[in-house]
């Protein structure tokens, strides 16, 4: 069985989502494992979403926002950054490899960087193997 990881990417509307669109309009090829969910700002992304994604079976979660200082809403990305580190610590405690979760800044002009990031992250998650959270949480033993 060849394992294809499923990855959920939360992208902010202004920088990263536009950057992903740019990757599209530039016809840059990247792994089809990345599934994008749009939010207005990375500041909207909260642990609940990430945890739910893992619980529902995602193998990796990618979070992208504007570069520090470039947030469309001034500082939403910093809030995202703080939650990201918080979540990392919590997930480590829950015995999860936090490499399954990644935060990167992607600007609207960085279509190429997004495509490369998508490929790179997919490869990393592929190497980590399937995430067991769904299984662990739903199997009562």
């Amino acid at each position, binding site marked *: 069985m060849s394992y294809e990881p499923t990855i959920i990417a939360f992208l902010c509307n202004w920088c990263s989502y536009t950057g992903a669109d740019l990757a599209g309009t530039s016809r840059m090829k990247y792994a089809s494992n990345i599934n994008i969910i749009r939010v207005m700002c990375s500041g909207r992304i909260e642990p*609940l979403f990430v945890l739910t994604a893992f619980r529902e079976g995602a193998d990796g979660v990618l979070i992208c926002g504007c570069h520090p200082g470039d947030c469309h809403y001034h500082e939403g990305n910093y809030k995202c950054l703080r939650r990201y580190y*918080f979540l990392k610590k919590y997930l480590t405690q829950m015995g999860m490899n936090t490499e399954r979760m990644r935060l990167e800044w992607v600007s609207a002009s960085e279509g190429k960087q997004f495509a490369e990031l998508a490929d790179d992250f997919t490869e990393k998650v592929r190497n980590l193997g399937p995430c067991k959270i769904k299984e*662990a949480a739903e199997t009562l033993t």
Partner: protein
Amino acid sequence: MAKKEKNKIKLAIYWGAACGGCCVSILDVHEKLFDIVAAADLVFWPIALDFKYKDVENMPDKDIDVTLFNGAVRNSENEHMANLLREKTKILVAYGSCSHLGGIPGLANFSNREEIFKRVYETTESTVNPEKITPQTKYKVAEGELSLPEFYNDVRTLDQVVDVDYFIPGCPPQSERLMEVFTAIVSGAELPPKGSVLGALDKSQCDECPREKSENKLIKEFKRPFEIEDDGKTCFLEQGVICMGPATRGGCGVRCIEGNAPCRGCYGPPTSVSDPGAKMMSAIATIIDENEPEAIEKVIDSIEDPAGTFYRFSVPSSIIRRNIETSEKKAEQAVV
């Protein structure tokens, strides 16, 4: 078996994996216990009355009107009784944090059975067990076969095992609240929709909290309660102490805060929140007053045990119910 009086309801109380505090909280109604007894026949209450499981098994289905089930589901006995009582009961109430959210026993979900047994029966400082004897579910002796309930790998909430009608939160629930709910049930008033949390408020703790709150919530360092000189007036969060109040349902009468201790979240999340830990983590992370990764991590590191802090009472009911690493180990062992 007590003779059924007219207009009296049949009430059962059972404890799963629990400390007994919930049962004590029922006793804590003091003289009002007479009101309860006047209104209800206690048909099953292992801590106080001598009934056998057989007696319950012999009851017709849905014979019991109300069962207050406290404690989490930890082993096969708990699970069996949960199923049995569900069968025999009209209104099954998850009573107290453990059956509601998993409670303190739920913290065991950070480990697995093997780890727990190893710790308890081998490595605790006071244990002398050179033969490494651990409990077995079945054991043959001359007199026949002895059996013990099976200790499960993880702790579950009641509603992860059976269908639950209502939840009364708290560790333990406040006796006053119990009486309110009990009175309501007995009076035959129209009950809220199934699945509701009874005996608590819709709003969270802060609504009742007498401490002074302001918008100055930015945090540079988290402190444990003993590390601050509490003025007894200012919101704990503003003093850098993690208080689960904002993400915890009110109704307990802010007892901990009245006692100058921050809320630990035993009443569980308000209706609008599914996973109190996730919400609280998000809120707390957002108000960290740093922008650089290293600085942020430093602030976070001042929280000793985030999972235990934010999910003190709710690990089994949370999104990531249990430690995935130990569960994976368990899975590996199973394969071997």
